[in-house]
């Protein structure tokens, strides 16, 4: 069964989510990857707070094209989340995030922060970028475009029914823990 989530989210609703749940997320999300997470951690810019409080950060470097005075999102799949592991827990705490969206999952430190703050990690399918771009209704604004470039800038976008699976929840469950495999 799919659960519909509307951003901004409240803590009890997020704490009720469990790893394995399929969700459709709507509202305002913000993209952020390596450079953005470092910026958020080191400089703690206030301009992002209204978008991130009870909100969602998406590990994504989209393809954007200019359309007169606005931007169109053409392709927006997830990027590998583990590169943000050193920063993610601090960003969750500092900005009061409810969702981290990406691919590949994250580590124990992030899992702990999800539990402490009441947040979840949502897994999107790597490469399925048109499906996610099609959920973007409007590109609201962008931060650090000049300094970071298109892929690393923080794009603030309104999405409708963004599909994802909860793979790390606030109760300490993670579908990304190492599988013990014997290769030979």
């Amino acid at each position: 069964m799919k659960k519909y989530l509307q951003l901004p989210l409240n803590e009890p609703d997020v704490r009720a989510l469990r790893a394995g749940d399929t969700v459709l997320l709507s509202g305002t999300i913000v993209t952020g990857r390596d450079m953005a997470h470092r910026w958020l951690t080191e400089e703690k810019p206030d301009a992002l707070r209204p978008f991130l409080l009870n909100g969602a950060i998406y590990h994504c470097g989209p393809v954007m094209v200019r359309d007169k005075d606005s931007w169109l999102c053409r392709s927006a799949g997830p990027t590998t989340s583990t590169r943000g592991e050193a920063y993610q827990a601090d960003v969750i705490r500092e900005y009061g995030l409810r969702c981290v969206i990406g691919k590949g999952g994250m580590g124990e430190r992030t899992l702990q922060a999800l539990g402490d703050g009441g947040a979840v990690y949502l897994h999107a399918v790597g490469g399925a970028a048109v499906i996610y771009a099609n959920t973007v209704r409007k590109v609201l604004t962008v931060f650090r475009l000049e300094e970071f470039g298109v892929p690393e800038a923080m794009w603030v976008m309104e999405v409708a029914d963004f599909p994802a699976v909860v793979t790390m929840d606030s109760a300490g469950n993670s579908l990304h823990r190492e599988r013990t495999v014997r290769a030979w």
Partner: protein
Amino acid sequence: MSRNFSEKDLTLALAGCLRQASCELPEDVENALRAAMKNEAAGSLALSILVTIVQNVELAKTQQQALCQDTGLPAFYVSYPQGLSTRRIAACIEHAVVVATEAGYLRPNAVDPVTGLNSGNNLGTRIPYTVFTESDEPEIRIDCLLKGGGSENVSVQYSLPDSRIDASRDLEGVRRCVLDSVIRAKGNGCAPGILGVGIGGDRITGLQTAKEQLFRRLTDTNPDPVLDDLERSLLERSNALGIGPMGLGGNTTLLGVKIGTAHRIPASFYVSVAYMCWACRRNSLRFPL
């Protein structure tokens, strides 16, 4: 002999080739993804991921949008007849890359490693990567590959012997390297992936050999029966590891394994693995002269 060609025509043809590479997955890869769906259990996360991937492939083609936002650092392999200026061809390639980037078929990916600044048009030092080979055909042929950074990050080179995985300088050692790379990649290369493997060579030619295997069709067979056997057994073993689509479990970890070789120096024995995500975006332009 001097030959001439229209730079404008080649640039436009190549920009079209890049658009198609970015928006349309090669048929053999799409077929392999559809076939893989039959190997996953009904109601499994693995199956739902594969369904999402195939839906995305269809949407990207219909809407003519980049099927994955990470269009990588475009690589070009050019064969050209004697007498043609490779500098003129290189200029057309650069121009086509800029056109395809402006149109949103390529993401601007060229970042200065010291200043951190993105060039904005996919041009930069040693970008785009282009290899020229002279041929006897009366045409310019350009093979291009768009390979995202996630899959590039999990590509790896082993130097045998490797005590960590008890791999010695033989085919069993090669096998262990390849399987170790699959386990280490988990889902981070966007599984189900395609492996290009280079046995031998040096640090450069080993990885070149590995990457060039990614141009092979998934349905082809290796002309060397020993390597063909190794390709098949590694594919089967990898898919039994349980890593699955995006590393979330399942029976589809790889779609193919392709192996090439390069002569090595007695002192060195490299095994190079170029991990390609399922979004194996390759295309070929044949430009008659």
